[in-house]
């Protein structure tokens, strides 16, 4: 079981009207991303309209929670007292669409992380927020 390599102080996101669904989606273990009901385009961050077809018919829709690491960095700097380093910050390209990126931490030994690595979501609950973290796909239960 990989430990949370980004433990320590963590500033949680506010639950804003447009974004709350993303931060609470993990309550039932499923990641959701905004999708256009008119043309099927996924977009993140969520916006009031589809950037492809301008439809206002956009809504959160479940995704597989699987993706690959598009790029990553190992942060070594202790920006705040108590911040545990090193940890991996990454952009994960979700399987549903090319260039559909979410930012996250990769919960795995830092030296094992590579670009292109297959990963899947693992939620980490803090208060009323379920942070979508990612783990190597093979490490998932």
């Amino acid at each position, binding site marked *: 079981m990989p430990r949370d390599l980004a433990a320590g102080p963590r*500033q949680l996101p506010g639950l804003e009207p447009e974004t709350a669904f993303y931060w609470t989606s993990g309550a039932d273990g499923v990641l959701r991303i905004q999708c256009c009901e008119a043309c099927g385009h996924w977009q993140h961050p969520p916006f009031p309209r589809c950037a492809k077809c301008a439809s206002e018919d956009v809504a959160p829709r479940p995704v597989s929670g699987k993706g690959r690491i598009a790029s990553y960095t190992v942060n070594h700097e202790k920006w705040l007292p108590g911040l545990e380093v090193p940890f991996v910050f990454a952009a994960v390209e979700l399987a549903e669409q090319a260039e559909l990126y979410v930012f996250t931490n990769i919960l795995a030994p830092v030296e094992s992380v590579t670009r292109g690595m297959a990963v899947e979501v693992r939620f980490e609950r803090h208060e009323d927020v379920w942070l979508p973290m990612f783990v190597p796909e093979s490490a998932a239960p």
Partner: protein
Amino acid sequence: MTAKPESLVCISGAAQSEVGRPSRRTALQLTADACLAALSDAGLAPEDIDGIATYPGKSPLGGGIAPVSPSEVQAVLGIENPRWVLASGEGFSHMAPIFNAINAIACGMARHVIVFRSVAQASARMASRESTLMSGGQTTRVEGNNAWTVPFNALSPINTFALYAQAYFDKYGATSKQLGAIAVNNRANAAHNPNAIYRKPLSLDDYLAARVISSPLRLFDCDSHIDGSTAIVLSHADAAKDLARPPIRIEAVGMAISGLWVGKFEGDFTRLDADRAGEMLWSRTDLRPRDVDCAQIYDGFSIHVWLWLEALGLVPRGEACRFTEGGARIALDGELPLNTGGGQLSAGRFHGYGHIHEATVQLWGRGGGRQVKDARTCLVSNGGYGYGAMLLRRD
């Protein structure tokens, strides 16, 4: 075709305040220092100024990122009749006030505009080291665009741009030695800049021995917080004959904003939307990249230089790493002298305006030990999240 607005406008004066880490002078004092020196440089007095512009304007954001407003500058300089005023932070396009001032002058709204950029980030960090983080050191929940990254402890822009560096390294086989050549080059140039914050020599071994901040970026890939101010005076080209200095012509401008500032990323992390600024710039001039005598390329982090060099077409895609390797081609006597005043890595984070100021230093022949021989054109670029570029030249 209608005349390009930038062809109707020139840079008539430029100056910088002292640089401090921190400075004993307040941000407004430093701003007044820079503005008065720039006016004197142009041969103008405060009463000649009818426009004031800045980036980003005074902001409640902490961290010393935006400490001075145009209204304060009007008051402290005694500018009686500013008819045109602008403060622009959108997209973090540092050059936005310059582009807007060009338009204001070209359409007759103003004749002489002072553009300033002031920072007090060194003082802010003395008071609170956390104040300059993306979260601003706040303990409340993070909202807005930073909410996409701060909860994952990406607390500095370096974490975002390290993603670009890693992707670039992997795609093009680039190395830390190739990237480190930028920091080494900038430091060598800063040795000749009395107003640079870091002037002691830096070797490639020093660079490689320094700690990793956010892989693959190291300590000397980062610029440094400072206190300081830069002021640039823009004037209508037909006023140039009455001014103290030969005009610096604005040959072409290019600009772009990107989704980065709203958390929307596109591409494969090896290029920026600065590409569109480069395309726009070259569409507005008959000059070509080979005509550029020196370049002041934004270096908030060293990786920006590679991405901008390619965005501006100064080197082919994927070749910037080999172009900077060893440093010979970007040195003062190389084929493209780069960041001749030290850039932000060594001269300090004047936040884009150090680059613009250094372009004027080169084109007015004020470079002393860092002067590029016969520099007649200089390409200057600003920005990591929003993008601006200008091709400047002297007659």
